[in-house]
């Protein structure tokens, strides 16, 4: 099951954790990514915290924590190769995994149909 935020992030359940990335719409709006700075694994974050810095050819942007929780793993491949986020935003271009403080928060996010309405 995949859920979406208004900040154009996707969240996918992966056992007790969720995987977080940005949507295809977001990568297209940002343009070619050239730099990604990921958070340290193990840090506790609150919804809205700026956890990732990305730079496209155009500008710098922040990716925020979609929900409260702990960052358990980050994807080092996108640091070495930021273009992975543009090429495969939903699979290889994921950003980080987190363990949610309140797993039920996940259910309150947008589903695919709701997200599609947002970007149409």
């Amino acid at each position, binding site marked *: 099951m995949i859920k979406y935020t208004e900040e154009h992030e996707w969240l996918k359940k992966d056992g007790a954790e969720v995987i977080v990335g940005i949507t295809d719409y977001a990568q297209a709006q940002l343009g*070619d990514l*050239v*730099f990604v700075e990921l958070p340290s694994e193990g840090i506790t974050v609150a919804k809205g915290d700026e956890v990732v810095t990305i730079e496209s*050819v155009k500008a710098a942007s922040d990716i925020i924590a979609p929900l409260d929780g702990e960052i358990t793993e980050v994807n080092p491949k996108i640091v070495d190769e930021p*273009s992975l986020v543009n090429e495969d935003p939903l699979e290889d271009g994921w950003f980080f995994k987190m363990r949610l403080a309140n797993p039920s928060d996940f259910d309150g996010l947008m589903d695919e149909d709701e997200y599609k309405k947002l970007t149409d």
Partner: protein
Amino acid sequence: MTDLQQTGLAEWHRDNGGKMVPFAGYEMPVQYAPGVLKEHLHCRASAGLFDVGHMGQVRITAADGNYETAARALEALIPMDVLGLGDGRQRYGLFTNDVGGIEDDLMFARMGEALMLVVNAACKEADIARLQGGMTDCEVEVLDRGLIALQGPLAHDILPGGHPMRDMRFMDMIETELFGAAVTVSRSGYTGEDGYEISVAQEDVVGLWSKLCADERVMPIGLGARDSLRLEAGLCLYGSDLDPTTTPVEATLNWAIQKIRRSGGARAGGFPGAEVILAQLDHGADRRRVGLLPEGRAPMRGGTALYMDDTGGTPIGQITSGGFGPSCAAPVAMGYVPTAQASPDTQIFAELRGKYLPVKIAAMPFITPGYKR
């Protein structure tokens, strides 16, 4: 974008995937579908086509019909050797102000008894007023024409076999015909690559563009890649790297001021700010524009402050333009530092998101230019 002007190619850009943005009062394509990175790399590997029709094109002739009269009048406004310019040759120039600062940069060429100028879109009204006010014995005619730049190592191969543009040298200008359109062409550009800048009547601009674009080696290039290409080539962007408080010597544009206009030259001085500029040519300036290579992977953009060490304190200078250099596969930048810190390989620091990150002074250009000298 109703208040914005459009070039003759605006509809073509919109019909062909151009992402339109406001730029210098014009609606211009920042990129097409392939995006900035691919457009940039394509231009360096093959050929790119740029709509630069927003720039100001000006033709100046003296009332007495003589080039010498027009050249002397322009020499009162810019510190360049205009009089000594050969017929069919072009030079880079700078409009200066009374304190030696730069009001705009421009290209100027001699075509017979006429001077042909290209000035920046954002400055063109001020430049035209400056020319009309300062060149009283001359007719200053603003040309409503299209301007297309064809740039890249294969630019020359795109042209029909035996075409006279193939025989031009860097900074030559000729009048000729290209794919049925009468054009005025210079072998120059803003990418660091070989190429041409082609002035064409408005009614022919879409036709010429379409014919050039029909060649599969040619890709249309937006303003995004135009900026990263010129940055890697070490070329200044007026308004970012040059402004009314920056002198030609601070900007390391000494090469653009020929000896004849410097102290001891036959036509030394006689342009706005000559006292300041000539003294700096003789004795140097306190700060200089330099190339900067951030040591990490993070792009550093215009406005980033520069420091002596990683503890911060008072900034010693500032990045004026910077970003990711696709051909360098690394961030590149340029900016101003005190002359004492301006030697290549000097390490300084830039503040990025609260951290002081190492940056090295580097020679420019960051790529090997392909100019056909």
